[in-house]
């Protein structure tokens, strides 16, 4: 953003200097570009088509995904020794080279699709009740497994994505989802492995413990920010590592340590604390995704209709005006971070009680860091986060399948995820690549904003 010192003097009709700021100066996640509306003189479909080719957030996101998948394909080619060698003969055998490349990439992405959404073959065998080439007759569970994996991966990401998105709306960048998730996993995991209770009590108590511990880890950040002005980015990065070392130490303690194993692993959580599976015990998808959707709905309501959401947004946009209007900025920040921490903590709890059972050093995986990507891709809106988490969940489930069947390392998924977010974060870049036109609706809004 331009430094206010150096701005052109605006005209008398709008002497407010803020108004002369360029639209692009606002970070992309603050730009409210409303979806296309039916406007006089155009049919709905015309408007839709225009919007589709325009630079609105949906198109940019789509373009970012396409671009990232394309570059992912390029990486596959570079990473495959045979195809790489084939490119050495490109000028002698151009068609063979392109064919080999296409085969590699299309096969990999097909495997990804089969591993994350549905395998049409399996569906066909299941529908006609035929035995697969392997000899087994597929069950409905087999057909649903890819989707189950996607949802299972998505659940914790929804939580950690929300944990980044909410503070973002209050003007805070929470890099600490990882640490908060770890603390949540410790909380939920401890209740799960140490107490013996009926499931009806055990699960809620474990969830509560995870939320509380994660929330505490977030609250510390908010409190330090409010009281001392310590930058939340730095504090959260540091707290991530403190939480990790605490986890490593914690697992070794006698009440948690699994005595039969020499590696860093805790006793398993009791059966009564494990999240129930939604469909069937052979499918991993569990209570976590239900809680995640509920959490997203709750956050969406709070941001739109809740009193606290109003305060949070006001503080995020303009803390000075908020405090002048009597809103306690410090308390709002602390509470926001506590809420974010609690959500990330639930993400950690989902990992340990939904899928892992034991606490290990890697129990929460990378969900905290991936949550940042999810939040950015979802444009820090609750339902956007859900969509982004589903996409990431699918990519991860598909990546595992790709690794198994095509032999391509699923690290590629990490790269694709990062690239999607880079492109989404740099919409101007995507627009330049695809030569997108300015959305008519967005243009109208911009004109409006200039008054």
């Amino acid at each position: 953003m331009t430094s206010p010192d150096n701005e052109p003097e605006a005209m008398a009709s709008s002497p407010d200097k803020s108004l002369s700021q360029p639209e692009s100066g606002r970070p992309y996640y603050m730009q409210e570009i409303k979806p296309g509306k039916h406007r006089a003189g155009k049919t709905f479909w015309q408007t839709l088509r225009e919007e589709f080719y325009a630079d609105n957030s949906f198109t940019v996101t789509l373009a970012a995904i396409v671009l990232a998948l394309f570059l992912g394909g390029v990486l596959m080619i570079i990473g495959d020794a045979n195809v790489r060698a084939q490119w050495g003969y490109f000028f002698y055998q151009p068609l063979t080279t392109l064919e080999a490349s296409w085969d590699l990439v299309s096969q990999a992405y097909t495997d990804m699709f089969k591993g994350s959404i549905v395998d049409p073959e399996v569906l066909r065998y299941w529908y006609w009740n035929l035995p697969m080439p392997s000899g087994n007759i597929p069950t409905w569970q087999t057909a649903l497994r890819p989707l189950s994996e996607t949802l299972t991966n998505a659940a914790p990401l929804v939580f950690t994505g929300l944990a980044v998105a909410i503070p973002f709306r209050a003007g805070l960048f929470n890099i600490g989802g990882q640490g908060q998730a770890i603390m949540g996993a410790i909380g939920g995991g401890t209740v799960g492995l140490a107490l013996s209770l009926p499931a009806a009590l055990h699960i809620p108590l474990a969830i509560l413990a995870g939320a509380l511990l994660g929330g505490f880890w977030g609250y510390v950040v908010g409190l330090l920010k409010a009281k001392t002005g310590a930058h939340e980015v730095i504090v959260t990065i540091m707290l991530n590592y403190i939480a990790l070392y605490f986890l490593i130490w914690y697992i070794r303690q006698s009440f948690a340590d699994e005595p039969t194993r020499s590696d860093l692993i805790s006793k398993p959580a009791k059966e009564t604390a494990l999240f129930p599976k939604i469909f069937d015990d052979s499918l991993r998808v569990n209570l976590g995704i239900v809680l995640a959707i509920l959490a997203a709905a709750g956050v969406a309501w709070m941001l739109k209709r809740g009193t606290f959401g109003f305060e949070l947004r006001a503080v995020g946009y303009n803390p000075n005006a908020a405090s002048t209007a009597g809103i306690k900025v410090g308390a709002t920040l602390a509470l926001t971070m506590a809420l974010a921490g609690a959500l990330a903590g639930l993400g950690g709890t989902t990992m340990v009680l939904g899928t892992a059972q034991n606490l290990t050093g890697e129990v929460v995986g990378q969900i905290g860091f991936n949550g940042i990507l999810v939040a950015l891709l979802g444009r820090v809106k609750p339902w956007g986060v859900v969509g982004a988490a589903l996409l990431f969940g699918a990519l991860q489930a598909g990546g595992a399948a790709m690794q198994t069947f095509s032999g391509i390392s699923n690290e590629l998924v990490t790269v694709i995820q990062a690239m999607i977010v880079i492109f989404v974060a740099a919409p101007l870049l995507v627009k330049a690549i695809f030569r997108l036109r300015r959305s008519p609706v967005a243009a109208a809004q911009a004109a409006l904003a200039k008054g």
Partner: protein
Amino acid sequence: MRGITKRFGDLVANDDIHLTVEPGEIHALLGENGAGKSTLMNVLYGLLQPDEGEILVDDKPVKIKGPSDAIRIGIGMVHQHFMLVPVFTVAENVMLGAEPNKAGFLDHATADRLVREVSQKYGLPLEPDAIIEDLPIGIQQRVEIVKALTRDVDLLILDEPTAVLTPQETDELLSVMRGLKESGKSIVFITHKLREVKAVADQITVVRRGKIVGTAAPTAPESELAEMMVGRSVILEVPKQAAQPGAPVLAVRGLVVADDRLHRAVDGVDLEVRAGEVLGIAGVQGNGQTELVESIMGLRPSLAGTVTFLGRDITDWSTREVLRSGVGYIPEDRSVDGLVKEFSVAENLVLDLYRSEPFGGRFALNPKAIDESAKGRVEEFDIRVQSEQQPVGALSGGNQQKVIVAREMSRPLKLFIAAQPTRGVDVGSIEFIHRRIIAERDVGSAVLVVSSELDEVVALADRIAVMYRGRILAIVPPGTPREKLGLLMAGITSEGAS
């Protein structure tokens, strides 16, 4: 400059402007805030590129692509907001961009000598080793001028240089300007203050809405200049009856407040505002008015003294408690403190009431009530919007200000505090806001108006308190001659210099 046009989107900031500055003259560029003066000078200094037109120096066209081009052809500029690195020393700031080097390293000795030489030559004493952020504003400005002079400029642009200065500092600056003129420099002096223009300018060009509306000699009468500036005769008169003051509503006793740099900005203020009267606080900006008001509102802690409101001690109350007890408040900078620009008009209208019935409760807002009330207030306060759901940032300055006024006046008040209520607001809205303030007084509220525009204070106030360096120097009736008020604002009481 010939035919300069500069657009920002649909906004034409400069429209076909021709301006000629002769060597050795002080050329005043006179115009209201937002008339396009600074834009024009930023074009001249290369910070902005004109859409049309050309710049000639010594009758030869030149292309100024950036400040370095401007500096090379002898143009220097002192910006309204200083372009000084606060953590650097005076010498470092002065040499930045043209650093003397010795064997690849910075040559501090030469830089210090240069600062001393230039500052002595033009009578602008400076300490080369002082850190900028420790210096008062007036001295910082001096650094800016010396910085430009060390670059051997022939033309010096001074953008609103007196806005932040006390009257003495202003006088000093004006005499420095005369001195520079005598040594052959040309000066473009941007201002909207008529008296200063008349004091130093050789030639006056008046800008209004991006266009040049005329030129005048410094001998032209003030009223004529003012008319050119605003396009019609200014009547800052608010129709009102004599006040009928009642019981004291707000009493401030011995209040001491620190500013952000922990200096005593408010240094023992006593004042009292009674029901049904307007107390105006006059004074040059930066004499503690901001801190005084923020302290009353609970936005800034006080170090000593008490604030009493309707007999209750509210010194340590939170802002929310103060607002709820019947105080309305217009902050001095609406875009920083008054409004959340991204919020809709409706949301801004309940920014301090969203937790009260019917707009919202402990947990949930009531959007229906918020929208309905917004419709009513938009109509009552004549806020020009396309919809109440429009972001407030899209409104003009005047309408934004009216949103704040509407918000603060829509609940029963006992005390109304307005800081710079009409800054950057169009004439129509000024009138409207002034009328509402007087109306508020007439229904029996106590009103405290703080303004750095003396005319505004005189027009509104029933009593005028003059604030100078954190103290109230005197409280005088509105009929007091301007000369006396001016002296008071400069810190000079009738008993002698302070």
